[in-house]
């Protein structure tokens, strides 16, 4: 009985460790990534004061919409408007990082 419990506890500990280590980048990293991946430069520190009036505000936008736009600009599927300005920097972010950034942006106040 004791051996069974010990084994179960070990398995539980290992599972938790595995879960934690394979977690995608957390949303709070999104704030940091937004800076280090240079999104901040064009979209503004609050994600709603862009450098150019024709650049979009991102704060409070829908998470999946943001992610799709990033992916499409990165792949070239979206190539309209100012996406040329953004395409050059998209290789700086992985899918996981784009997810984290989108998630964080969606939590920001719109106004």
């Amino acid at each position, binding site marked *: 009985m004791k051996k069974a419990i010990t084994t179960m506890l070990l398995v539980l500990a290992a599972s938790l460790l595995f879960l934690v280590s394979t977690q995608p980048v957390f949303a709070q990293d999104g704030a940091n990534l937004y*800076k280090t991946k*240079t999104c901040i*430069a064009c979209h503004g520190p609050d994600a709603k004061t862009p450098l150019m009036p024709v650049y979009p505000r991102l704060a409070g936008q829908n998470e999946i919409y943001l992610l799709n736009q990033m992916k499409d600009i990165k792949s070239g599927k979206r190539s309209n408007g100012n996406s040329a300005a953004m395409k050059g*920097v998209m290789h*700086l972010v992985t899918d996981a990082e784009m997810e984290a950034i989108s998630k964080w942006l969606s939590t920001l106040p719109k106004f």
Partner: protein
Amino acid sequence: MKNMFSKGLVVLSLMIFAGSANVMAQSVFAEGAKWGSKVKEALDALELKGDPENGYDIYQVCAACHLPTAWGDPAGTFPMLAGQHTSVLIKQIADIRAGNRDNPTMYPFAIQIEGAQDLADVVAYIATLPMNPDPPTGDGKLLKRGEELYKVNCVKCHKETGEGSIKDSFPLIGGQVYDYIIRQLKWIRDGKRRNANPDMVKQVNEFSDEDFIAVADYVARLKTPNHKRNLDELKTNPIYKNVKH
């Protein structure tokens, strides 16, 4: 060259923020720089004394991508600006603003710098920054070939150390970010970078992509005289605290 000239003139007149009179002045900087941009604000900025303190304020916008150290991005997306000649920086920003060099990412940042004095100020600030003592390089496998190519093709303008020439506006390339060098070389050869010196375009015309990898790896490792400048900044300024020196 003439077509690009007149194209640049049209774009310039539409886009220069101050709306100043569009006078194409003769280059006053150096005989060797006559191939360079005739953009008026560039020529003006070259003659002005820059104020690095005002330049620091202007640079904060640039720092988001080029980093506070001005060492650029190791992946080569944004070049190192530290150590670059003021004449070269002035020309590049002016060319981007005027549409002589296509860079949609840079364009809105370039237009933040309003006029010749601000241009002189920001490059004066950048000139105070030390260069990266340990820049990213390639894998080192083609260095011998890179060295041979460099000595035959590049020394004449960029010098043995890769320092180029401030007077002739030949860029300092020694220690530049490896991947950035490769991309610019390809774009110069293929005509995508339209504001390159025509002699440069001719010089790299026969280079293969692998030649570029070889020469870029060699060049990224070069140490120019500018590397020795401002070295005490590395020791005293906290933004360099993680650098080994």
